[in-house]
Every structure is written in structure tokens, then in C-alpha cells.
């Protein structure tokens, strides 16, 4: 099933916007995580972890779901297909994995924000290396997915070769 070219372009544009926005948001989280770990100012440290929770729910999750949904629409509605090319399959796997980890990680954001909001909690208890680690790994995955989308390395699956024949 192939969509009209104008619809294909719109789906691709939204997919690129959501995916690039997700990379930018992950980079912002890496920055917040570094500030949380290294800043000597207690309100700044607490503020970093407090900001992560709503930002994850209101920015990261919509961008991740938007990227996943528009990626599915773009692949299924164009000649690329979902299971015909290895690069599409790996991009889908990366997107699914990153979205799953993000959704599972929302509880952790909430707990870290709760600790940061508790004025009796010591700063050493508020600081947490986990967001830096997760944001760095997310960036590696998302940049890999972006590279796959740009370079589109060759290689058709058995299903893709059958469809072509």
C-alpha cells in the first residue's frame, strides 16, 4: 500500500521533526544530568532533577511516540516497507527499545523528583548518575538510528527480495 506523494512527504517531515527533536531532548537531559551531578549550588541540583520528571512526560514521551508512529506510517506507506530492508528493521528495533526503556524509566524520574523535592534529603542523596548514563546511551542509539535513516545501507531481507521478484 503506497500513500500519495504529498502524504508521504508530510509523514516523513513529521517523522524527521519528531526524531531530531527526540535527539535534542535527550541531549538536554544529558546536560541536566551533568548539572545535577556537578553543580555546587543545592537549588540548581534539586531543580535539575525536578525539571526532568515533567519534561520527560511532556516532551520526551510525545516525541518518542511520535517518532515511532510516523516511522511506521512512513515505512508502511512507501516503497521501503517495514520488513523489506535491514536498515528499516534495525531502525524500528532501536526506536521500540528506546521507547520501551523511556516509558519504564518514567517511574525513576518521579522518584528522583520526589527525593529532590524533599528538603530534608541530603544533596548526596539527590545527585544521581543514572540520568547521565541513560541519556548518553539514548543519544548513541538515536544517532545510530538517524545515521541508518540518512545512509540507508544496502541489504534486502528474504521477504524484500521475494516482494521484488
Amino acid at each position, binding site marked *: 500500500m503506497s500513500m500519495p506523494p504529498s502524504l508521504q512527504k508530510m509523514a516523513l517531515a513529521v517523522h524527521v521533526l519528531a526524531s531530531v527533536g527526540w535527539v535534542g531532548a535527550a541531549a538536554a537531559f544529558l546536560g541536566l544530568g551533568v548539572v545535577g551531578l556537578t553543580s555546587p549550588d543545592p537549588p540548581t541540583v534539586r531543580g535539575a532533577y525536578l525539571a526532568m520528571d515533567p519534561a520527560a512526560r511532556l516532551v520526551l514521551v510525545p516525541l518518542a511516540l511520535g517518532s515511532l508512529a510516523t516511522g511506521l506510517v512512513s515505512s508502511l506507506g512507501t516503497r521501503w516497507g517495514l520488513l523489506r530492508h*535491514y536498515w528499516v528493521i*534495525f531502525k524500528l*528495533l532501536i526506536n521500540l527499545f528506546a521507547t520501551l526503556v523511556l516509558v*519504564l524509566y518514567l*517511574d*525513576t524520574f*518521579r*522518584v*528522583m523528583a*520526589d*527525593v529532590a523535592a*524533599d528538603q*530534608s*534529603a*541530603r544533596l548526596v*542523596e539527590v545527585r*544521581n548518575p*543514572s540520568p547521565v548514563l541513560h541519556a548518553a546511551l539514548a543519544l548513541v542509539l538515536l544517532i545510530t538510528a538517524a545515521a541508518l535513516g540518512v545512509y540507508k*545501507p*544496502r*541489504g534486502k531481507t528474504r521477504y524484500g527480495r521475494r516482494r521484488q521478484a
Partner: protein
Amino acid sequence: MPRWAKVAWVITILVVLAFLISLVAGVRHGPGLHRPPEGGAGGAVPEPAAVAAP
């Protein structure tokens, strides 16, 4: 299958295996890992469920 796809499959399988081994080995995941220690100077933040319980 092209070489890059073979390498990507191997990396994917290794990542999944590492995650499964970490689960079997008892490495804890999730928000419990990030809670401050009980009885610390700052005090632990109670779980929302515990707060809501009568």
C-alpha cells in the same frame, strides 16, 4: 545478508543477553535503585502506595 547487518544482529543479541544475564545475576533495575538509604540523615522518601495506605 550484508556484513553490517550481521554485525548489527550480533550487537543486538549481545545487548539482549547482557540484559538477561544482569536480571538473572540479580542486578536491580527500576526506581528502587535510586531511593536514598533508609534511616539516612535525610530520611527516605516513602513510596506513594505506602502514603496512600490507611
